[in-house]
């Protein structure tokens, strides 16, 4: 070519892009339903609900520094839904157990059982009044804050309210449906 002007946006370029767009639209139309099909549907009977939990010791009877462990019911198969998360935990993540706690200052908490480092179930250290993680040695105060790493964030709370009798609490959760 004699002149060295850069190519402008020609009619051919326009038609080329037009056809390329049509082809892309065709492919997307064909693949779209497949992607929708692949998106997991909730299991039949799966629903978010408040789960009543029986505690080994009534919340009101806990003395400061006490904690009781509880598990998610297995029939129907259920889990608790974390309220705030932090670290490996996130709001909406599922927990299959928790602790009802009265900390040394007398405040009550209900925590999801998962450590904020990598999700291992923490255990109560009754002697030191801490929650200790068996996996990598993270430790938490009874109010959920970190005492010792590698946990990067406090324990996740579970949303709860008192149940019908003193020994029960009602915790936000989900019936899994399988």
């Amino acid at each position, binding site marked *: 070519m004699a002149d060295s002007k850069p190519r402008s946006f020609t009619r051919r370029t326009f038609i080329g892009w037009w056809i390329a767009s049509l082809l892309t639209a065709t492919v997307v139309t064909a693949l779209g*339903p*497949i992607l929708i*099909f692949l998106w997991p549907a909730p299991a*039949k009977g799966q629903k978010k609900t408040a789960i009543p939990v029986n505690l080994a010791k009534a919340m009101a009877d806990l003395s400061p520094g006490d904690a009781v462990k509880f598990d998610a019911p297995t029939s129907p198969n259920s889990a608790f839904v974390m309220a705030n998360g932090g670290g490996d935990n996130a709001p909406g993540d599922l927990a299959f157990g928790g602790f009802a706690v009265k900390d040394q200052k007398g405040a009550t908490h209900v925590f999801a059982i998962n450590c904020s480092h990598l999700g291992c179930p923490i255990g109560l250290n009754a002697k030191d009044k801490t929650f200790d993680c068996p996996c990598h040695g993270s430790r938490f105060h009874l109010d959920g804050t970190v005492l010792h790493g590698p946990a990067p964030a406090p324990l996740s709370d579970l949303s709860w309210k008192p149940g019908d009798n003193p020994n029960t609490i009602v915790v936000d959760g989900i019936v899994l449906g399988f």
Partner: protein
Amino acid sequence: MAIPHPRDIQMAVVDWLDARYPFTKAVDEALYQRVPNFANAFYYCFGGMVFILIAVQLLTGILLALYYVPDAGGNPAPAYTSVNFIQNSVYLGWLIRGTHFWGANLLIIMVILHMARVYWTGSYRAPRELNWMVGVIMLLLILAFSLTGYLLPWDTKAYFATEVTIKLAGSLPPVQLGTFIKEILQGGAVVGPPTLQRFFTIHVFLLPALIVLLMYVHFRFIRAHGISEPM
């Protein structure tokens, strides 16, 4: 910067590939075959439509396998409830399963039409007899697909239809042979969970592998012989 034509992008990709392996040459050899004028009649398309339908069946079948549970134990059996789940709960599950179902029905029709066309135009004549034989085997494979697939929803219709077909196969004399065939198909004394396991395995592992292999053979024969001239 000048806006490139999509073809420029395409050429950049193709050139990169071609510098490493002669893809263009291989694709050209596969695609650029002259179609004789007599083969432009619509009834020469039936074979290609069978191919497309089989491709659709393979795709939708793989998708269904993501949710289907081949387990006939218990009541209701997971096989039944999983099909129910696909149909009513999985997003667009009714569409994918419906495509698989109607694709299977259409496939039989198109296979018969394709076979009728080959017969009508005399395309089975020498030297193409082997391809006819391969085609007949594939027809039987398609029918086996239909038979085994029919049981998988594990509903009453599926169960008793299979009961009937197995009874037919088992009526072959002498009695000992019939009973042997029946028990091999059923995987036991009655149509039950082992039957579903067998039919499922045949439907999703054995038959797809065989049909893909035979389709390849079928097409290589076509390429070797060319499309048969009209009589």
